[in-house]
């Protein structure tokens, strides 16, 4: 099998391009890693889009809100271990007639940090979920409602802490009527039609 000059050139150009691509990828990765914890810029917690939730009237429906803490950072859990630490807290502004039930926070992850070698802190890192109970009253007109609120948190990395921030959030709930009550036929007395 022989390879002519043009094919050889094409092979060289192809391998050069692959080499450049790999080098560019590694350099980009190195840059991202080196600057992934640039101090001075407070990290931002993000919330995944919440799918439309159907909530039946007169019944509590749980809505899961999925948050993500950027890599290398942590935020206090809802129950930090010191009175001075700022807990992560969700505050919702609900429309009239839609009652906010309890908010379920995940348990914090107990972790040591370089600045707390002897004291475990209760924190959230990576992905975590907060569940909110939405309870439309019987009087609510069926339809779509947007719930607004904010997640208050205070983040730190291994060497510095950032001022408390609030992440505004919203999600949609479709309120539907409760199913019609099922009226079972009462057992008839054999004497009724006598």
């Amino acid at each position, binding site marked *: 099998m022989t390879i002519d000059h043009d094919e050889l050139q094409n092979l060289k150009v192809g391998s050069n391009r692959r080499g450049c691509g790999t*080098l560019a990828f590694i350099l980009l990765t190195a840059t991202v890693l*080196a600057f992934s914890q640039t*101090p001075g810029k407070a990290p931002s917690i993000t919330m995944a889009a919440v799918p439309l939730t159907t909530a039946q009237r007169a019944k509590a429906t749980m809505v899961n809100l999925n948050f993500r803490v950027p890599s290398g950072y942590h935020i206090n859990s809802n129950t930090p271990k010191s009175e001075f630490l700022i807990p992560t807290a969700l505050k919702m502004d609900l429309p009239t007639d839609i009652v906010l039930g309890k908010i379920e926070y995940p348990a914090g992850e107990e972790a040591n940090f370089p*600045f*707390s070698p002897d004291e475990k802190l209760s924190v959230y890192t990576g992905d975590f979920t907060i569940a909110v109970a939405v309870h439309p009253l019987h009087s609510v007109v069926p339809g779509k409602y947007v719930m607004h609120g904010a997640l208050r948190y205070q983040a730190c990395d291994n060497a510095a*802490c950032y*001022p408390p921030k609030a992440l505004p959030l919203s999600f949609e709930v479709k309120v539907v009527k409760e199913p019609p009550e099922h009226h079972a036929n009462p057992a008839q007395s054999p004497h009724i039609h006598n």
Partner: protein
Amino acid sequence: MNGVLFVKRNPLTLVVVAFAVALMLYVGFHAARRSGPGFAPHLTHSSLAPDFSLESLDGQTTRLSDYRGKAVLLNFWATWCGPCKIEMPWFVELQNQYASQGLQIVGVAMDDASKEDISKFAKDMGVNYPILIGKESVGDQYGGVPALPESFLIGRDGKIVDKIIGLRGKAEIEDSIRKALDTKTASSQASAAGKNTTSQ
């Protein structure tokens, strides 16, 4: 082209190049973190530390310029800041150790906690230096103080000698304190300049 072919032949070169670049970025990033002007563009070494007036925990109004002639470690902190809590016992020790040489540590509490809570926190930590109740405007004068702890080392002449962002080792803080203590007051600089002029 040849260079790229060389890289193709030696995948190890890619790793070495990437490592070297990452190392350079890391070193540059940490140099910037320690004292980079990028954090507070208007505050660089030798800038005069912006003066301010704040209320202390004991209700006194304190101006930064009240400490002119001393080396000052101006520490921005907050009760919710874990790394700040680590530094405080060091500051207590360093204040004791260097007070006779003219060091004054000044804490500026940058949080929304009540004065009572800040007092309780400082008392629990055994703080032996003045704590001032911070204001956003003062933080802005010092580049916004976007991360805590953040400390400025100010020489006897009122000029910024060093800046430390985030938790660093006690030895590094002590080095910066010595740098600030080694500075001369503005008046002694002027008299030294006068002597030089006379001797010429």
